[in-house]
């Protein structure tokens, strides 16, 4: 392998305008928050980035009241065309501050700057642009002649795409006339609080958006608050089930975007080099912290050796390290806890008899890092083939016939996404029909767009985000 050396090309962390402390955003103001403050870390260095005030039960109640007031007095009464202009303003402000947001996101989350810069932040802006245009066209969304907003939406988002998940949640809620109380993840609250500044700059009426940092107990306060009309959650299946149980028997509307264990199916006629790029993008993008990551590679038996050789070669060229370096492909694992989970599952793979291959790339001595790992000889019964690892770990299984590929791909309680690699169009369409998954990528992987509905079957949750379908989550039909 030719050795290419890269000069370091770090993005300046000054661009993030990092402040020593951040506070909850309630009723249009930054307030102290009476919860126990949390410290958010840079997972690449383990240093404290900032102290963040959290919301207690009383603060959540204040936020819900602020959202209710804003809903009743201004936001739901405002003509859609006017709401749209606020949302367009937000989209523009995200674009204007995109570099700052990207650097801050990489500092707080550990994701490579090239991903936050080229994917997360632009797609977040795109979600506001897309939904802004819906605000005055809801009568055309196919949900009946006079769709009405639900009221106050409680939204809980994960740490893997902090700003992007916020945009997925807030943009459709605002466009449809709802007001929101959003809890960012405990380990990644910073861009959400800069987003709150953007709401102020956009002169969004106070209370329309409220951001309440905190841990699971803050989330539970939102879920159980009697004056919340809708809960939207993205996160683990385990927590999703708890939330579904909590809102059972109430009038609250619920949408869940939960875990996945996506199969990426490679047929022997697939263009293998392209497939390898897709597999790498599928499982190593964002350190594998992607609910729809292609974590199970199903390779046709006749090409598995060739594919694995190409894959290992390609993975060994991935650069792991400083998230702020523009040359970094794989950044830091978001937290020590998550790193421990990934290690535990990887060890179970070895213990259950799968063959482990780990890239020999250098790993920084500080921070939470996990070198990209590929398990071959994986059986369907193994934990690494059944449980979501949420890290840069790929499990490789094989199949002989298309029917076997379908059976193995569908052999999971999840149903979020799947990939198909073949040159044969009729097989792509047949496979796409057979796979029980909400998103199917053929000869590509991990593509997202606000115009394309995203969401899962079965234990990957219910409801869709994006497209006309996504509006349904925030409207009475």
């Amino acid at each position, binding site marked *: 392998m030719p050795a290419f050396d890269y000069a370091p090309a770090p993005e300046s962390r000054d661009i993030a305008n990092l402040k020593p402390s951040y506070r909850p955003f309630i009723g249009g103001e930054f307030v102290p928050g009476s919860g126990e403050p949390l410290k958010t870390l840079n997972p690449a260095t383990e240093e404290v980035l900032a102290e963040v005030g959290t919301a207690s039960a009383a603060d959540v109640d204040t936020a819900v009241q602020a959202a209710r007031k804003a809903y009743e007095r201004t936001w739901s009464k405002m003509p859609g065309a006017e709401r749209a202009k606020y949302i367009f303003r937000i989209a523009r402000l995200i674009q204007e501050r995109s570099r700052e947001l990207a650097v801050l996101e990489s500092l707080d989350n550990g994701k490579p700057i090239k991903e936050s810069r080229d994917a997360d932040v632009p797609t977040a802006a795109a979600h506001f642009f897309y939904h802004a245009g819906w605000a005055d066209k809801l009568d055309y969304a196919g949900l009946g002649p006079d769709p009405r907003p639900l009221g106050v939406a409680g939204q809980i988002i994960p740490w893997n795409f902090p700003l992007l998940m916020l945009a997925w949640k807030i943009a459709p809620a605002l466009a449809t006339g709802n007001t929101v109380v959003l809890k960012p993840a405990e380990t990644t609250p910073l861009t959400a609080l800069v987003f709150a500044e953007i709401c102020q700059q956009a002169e969004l009426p106070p209370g329309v958006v409220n951001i309440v940092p905190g841990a699971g107990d803050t989330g539970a306060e939102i879920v159980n608050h009697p004056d919340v009309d809708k809960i939207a959650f993205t996160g683990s299946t385990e927590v999703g089930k708890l939330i579904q149980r909590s809102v*059972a028997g109430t009038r609250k509307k619920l949408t869940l975007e939960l875990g996945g264990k996506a199969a990426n199916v490679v047929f022997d006629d697939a263009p293998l080099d392209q497939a390898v790029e897709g597999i790498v993008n599928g499982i190593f993008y964002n350190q594998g912290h992607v609910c729809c990551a292609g974590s199970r590679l199903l390779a046709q038996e006749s090409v598995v050796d060739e594919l694995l050789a190409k894959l290992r070669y390609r993975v060994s060229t991935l650069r792991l390290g400083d998230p702020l370096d523009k040359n970094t492909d794989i950044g830091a694992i978001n937290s020590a806890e998550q790193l421990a989970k990934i290690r535990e599952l990887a060890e179970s793979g070895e213990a259950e008899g799968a063959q482990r291959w780990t890239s020999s790339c250098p790993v920084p001595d500080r921070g939470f890092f996990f070198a990209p790992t590929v398990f071959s000889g994986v059986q369907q019964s193994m934990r690494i083939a059944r449980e979501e690892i949420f890290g840069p770990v790929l499990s490789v299984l094989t199949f002989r016939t298309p029917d076997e590929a379908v059976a193995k791909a569908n052999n999971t309680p999840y149903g979020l996404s799947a990939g198909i690699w073949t040159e044969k169009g009729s097989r792509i369409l047949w496979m796409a029909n057979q796979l029980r998954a909400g998103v199917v990528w053929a*000869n590509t992987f991990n593509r997202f767009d606000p115009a394309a509905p995203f969401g899962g079957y*079965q234990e990957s949750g219910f409801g869709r985000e994006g497209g006309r*379908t996504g509006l349904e989550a925030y409207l009475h*039909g």
Partner: protein
Amino acid sequence: MADRVSVAKTYKLYIGGKFPRSESGRVYPVHDAKGRFLANAAHSSRKDVRDAVAAARKAFAGWSGATAYNRGQVLYRVAEMLEGRREQFVAEVAASENIPARKAQSAVDAAIDRWVWYAGWTDKIATVLGAANPVAGPYFSFTVPEPTGVVGILAPQRSALLGLVSVLAPVLAAGNTAVVVSSADRPLPAITLSEVLATADLPGGVVNMLTGRAAELGSWLAAHADVNALDPTGAEPAERGELARQAADTVKRVLAVPEEEPDWSQRPDLGRLRTYLEPKTVWHPLGV
């Protein structure tokens, strides 16, 4: 001369295209509003629920894989067969619901028309609820609605036929298969409807009809890992919370239903169809 003695009918279950007795061997008496004995209905058990779910799962691939045109034909055929047995249904609905024949007749007519309405939907769902997604990149992206899978239905308790048809037909139109627990006190039109379904080219197992108590059978459906969605219409409002909690263990779709049984004579919106559909988004790169 003595009056002719009528031939009484034994009402059974409908599972996997067959009409078995309940595994439990239990029956319960069904009376009309004046307290006159009408028949013994099978009192379904947990095992009947499991058999019915297995039959519905087995039938799912065929029914969901049938063309929308074909599904529409079959649902329209149900309307034809119902029309042919209109008088029987009018008599059964009148006896079950204690309403005059004229009212029963309009309920049966509305039930027939509802099958026709949903028959027409099968090949329009994808057009109306699907999409070509104008994504910002060189990709072809489209979204198609697909059936959710096996749907457990606790049928309305009051409206024995029109209510039943209103909750069942959208499930089938969307391509799902169903396990239905009929109205407990008014089960006879449900079993007669099963006879119609069995002769209307509907493949066996697509609909499985159980008579019995929603309060007893509902939780087996709500907790069953191979049931994908639940319609709790026929459950007591106080029991629905517990059913929804049981459904959460497998992240089931649970239909949001009004507290009181609605006026089924109103034309439905698309809410029921939507609940039982999974939008699937497919992407492919563009290029030469």
